[in-house]
């Protein structure tokens, strides 16, 4: 009796949300902490804009892979698609004009489908497969670009400011996020992908075509990465680098895992990834404003990844699919 009356102070909706999305607590904690530590610089419009910008980058990179992680696999190809896609846009620009941006989308879908087929038929661990593909794309990017980044002009309209202080890329990302969450939460495809991540054998026995849905997961991942990369291409400066930066690869993973999607799959998904991305960005901006040396920041990010992987793996029981 005492317990229930105590609980009545907080509406059950909030309790349920916090139980399903424990990262919200971390988000609030980090936000409050840095607001107190650096009230001027952290609570500034400029900082919020930067947070939004970085959040968009992370989210658009992480949206596709978080679909794959739900099935218990891993897709690291997103950075490769973005890099190679950028160079292909530069190559196709003289021929296709503004349509050349769609090459990124095509590349994404094709890559995803290819990974899916190889992974499903040859039964190779997706981590190694996508990592090798990433390295291949990286090499191809540097080769095609001739060794240095190629800037393409003409796509400024993608990120042309619409609302002050809100990056346009953020506006773009909203429908993308909704689409991903919708697929995972409200359709048969999403349910089956969760099923495969939760218990692949069980999914097979329940009459799910596991191979087909795995291929579909990778293709969806490629599709979302493709769409995201079209926006990121301009959002990150109208060119793509020819050098692979580890941060670009690792941060989206941190966002996925921190959001509460265990790498074994079966729960979590895009809706948690956005929270993970937001939490990570706020955290990163906070430590960035602090007097810490960049190396220490890197160290903190690494530790954060370790902690969140451990927590999300351990939390398999307490975590429900949402």
């Amino acid at each position: 009796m005492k317990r229930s009356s105590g609980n009545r102070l907080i509406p059950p909706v909030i309790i349920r949300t916090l139980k399903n999305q424990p990262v919200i607590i971390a988000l609030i904690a980090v936000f409050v902490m840095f607001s107190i530590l650096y009230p001027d610089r952290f609570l500034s419009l400029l900082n919020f804009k930067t947070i939004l910008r970085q959040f968009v980058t992370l989210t658009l990179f992480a949206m596709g892979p978080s679909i794959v992680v739900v099935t218990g696999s891993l897709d690291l190809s997103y950075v490769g698609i973005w890099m190679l896609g950028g160079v292909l846009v530069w190559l196709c620009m003289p021929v296709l004009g503004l349509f050349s941006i769609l090459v990124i989308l095509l590349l994404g879908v094709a890559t995803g489908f290819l990974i899916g087929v190889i992974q499903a038929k040859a039964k190779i661990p997706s981590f190694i497969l996508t990592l090798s593909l990433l390295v291949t794309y990286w090499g191809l990017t540097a080769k095609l670009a001739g060794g240095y980044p190629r800037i393409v002009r003409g796509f400024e309209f993608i990120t042309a400011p619409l609302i002050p202080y809100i990056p346009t890329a953020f506006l773009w990302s909203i429908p993308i996020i909704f689409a991903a969450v919708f697929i995972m939460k409200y359709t048969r495809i999403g349910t089956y992908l969760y099923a495969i991540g939760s218990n692949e054998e069980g999914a097979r026995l329940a009459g799910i075509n596991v191979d087909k849905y795995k291929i579909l997961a990778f293709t969806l991942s490629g599709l979302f990465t493709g769409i995201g990369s079209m926006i990121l291409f301009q959002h990150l400066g109208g060119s793509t680098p020819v050098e692979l930066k580890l941060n670009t690869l690792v941060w989206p993973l941190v966002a996925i895992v921190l959001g509460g999607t265990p790498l074994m799959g079966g729960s979590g998904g895009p809706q948690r990834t956005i929270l993970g991305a937001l939490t990570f960005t706020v955290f990163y901006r906070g430590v960035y404003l602090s007097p810490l040396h960049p190396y220490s920041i890197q160290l903190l990010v690494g530790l954060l990844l370790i902690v969140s992987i451990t927590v999300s793996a351990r939390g398999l029981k307490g975590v429900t699919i949402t």
Partner: protein
Amino acid sequence: MRMGIAMDDSLLEVKGVSKTFGGVVRALDDISLAARRNEIVGVVGENGAGKSTLMKILVGVYPPDKGELYHKGEKVPFPKDPKEAAKRGISIVYQEKGVIPWLKVYQFLFLGHEDKYVKFSILQTDKMKKHAAAILEELHVKCDAEAFMYELPLSTQKMVEIARAILSVRLESGEDGTTPIIILDEPTGPLNDEERRELFSDLLKMKKNASFFFISHIIPEVREFTDRVHVLRDGKLVANYDFSEEKIAEEDLFRAIVGRESSEYISKQEVKGVDRGAVGLTAKNMTKKGHYYDISFDLHKGECVGIFGPAGSGKSQIIRTIAGIMSFERGELIVKGHKLKASAPPHVRLRSGIGYFSGETGKELFFNWPIVKNISIVNMQKILGKFMPVINFNAERKMAQRIVHRLRIRTPSVNTDCYSLSGGNKQKVSVGKWVERKPDILLLDDPTIGIDVGAREDIYEVLSEMKKSGISMILVSDDPKEYSILCDRIMFVMDGRIQNVLGPDEFRKVVGI
């Protein structure tokens, strides 16, 4: 009926143990029981009756809320962890996953106790092997200490596990001759009849070296092999029987466990004399070398055909082939007039109306999912919107509630995650999804393995109803009674060939039930 145990011959005694979880669920209520030297004490009850909780208290996994523990008549505190329990002479062998298949027997026996065999930081494997062989000999476990665990038959694996439990007690408590008390948590779950008998004949020999708490659902084996039995129901001790005084009837034990009359085995009046409907499935000379040969039969609408035979007869392989988990080499499988490809996987089979249900819930359930999702997974078509392929959560919930109600699944809500359900209820969820899906043909692969009698009856009831509604079934089981309850025809399979086809009455006569 409650017996007083003389202090001197009781080895371990618990008095007035109570345990409540989360301030609400009363798992154990004033339980007192004891084990004497060299006896097998049965602890039986339905799932959720409190057997496991009690045993976990004994090995120090949970602390009790109340109660006392006596060891050789001396009051001792309850152990705080399994290691401390082993020092008191108590050790447990869990139902599943205790064996590490790729270890050799001697490595497995001494796992975690290697420090006793280290000299100059080198493991003295020769000494370990010799000791292991001596221990196996002493405990009448017939196996080679250098064999790999996976090479042994299941029953021997279990015996090695028990030997390991005894050994851990000896190593932890010092060689002062404390008689070990070994808790066996449903040890016969994964075993077939033959392996079961094997295990028990070994256990009876081991009684010289240890006492056992034997947890089980299977009434005949409890009756046959234990010296005394305690019956738990809803956390209370409801009956004690001493078999040295009286051998009670199976029926009485059953009644004590479930607290209601055994509808025993529903069958008898039902089932028989059905009109045969159209042929739903035909197998023609199905062959897979090394497993089964020339399997031919027809399955009619609303009929249940059993494939009966000893372990290794090929019965499991046949049903798994029909389910699409295995492929066949020769012959034909025809469903509703269409030939099926030999290697078509389960999802293709399901499209032609074949559903597969295995009693191994670990295989089928999505443990981190709520009940509602576990049921909707094969019923997506029903809950998608008419115009858009979007899940209708309301319909999904209603469907799950219907199943929970119909199968009497004990759960606070349909949103409860499956891992927190008891074994029998998990099984019901697992079968429930097929109840809703209503496939044309349902394959039952040991549908009630390892669950208690009450849950079993509920599942039989719902399966019988499905059968009446025209769903055909094929059954494979280790329990002959199951065939006599559900089947209209029983094919007797041996060495991969159909030897004989029996009606239920003939079958009962043949197997003697």
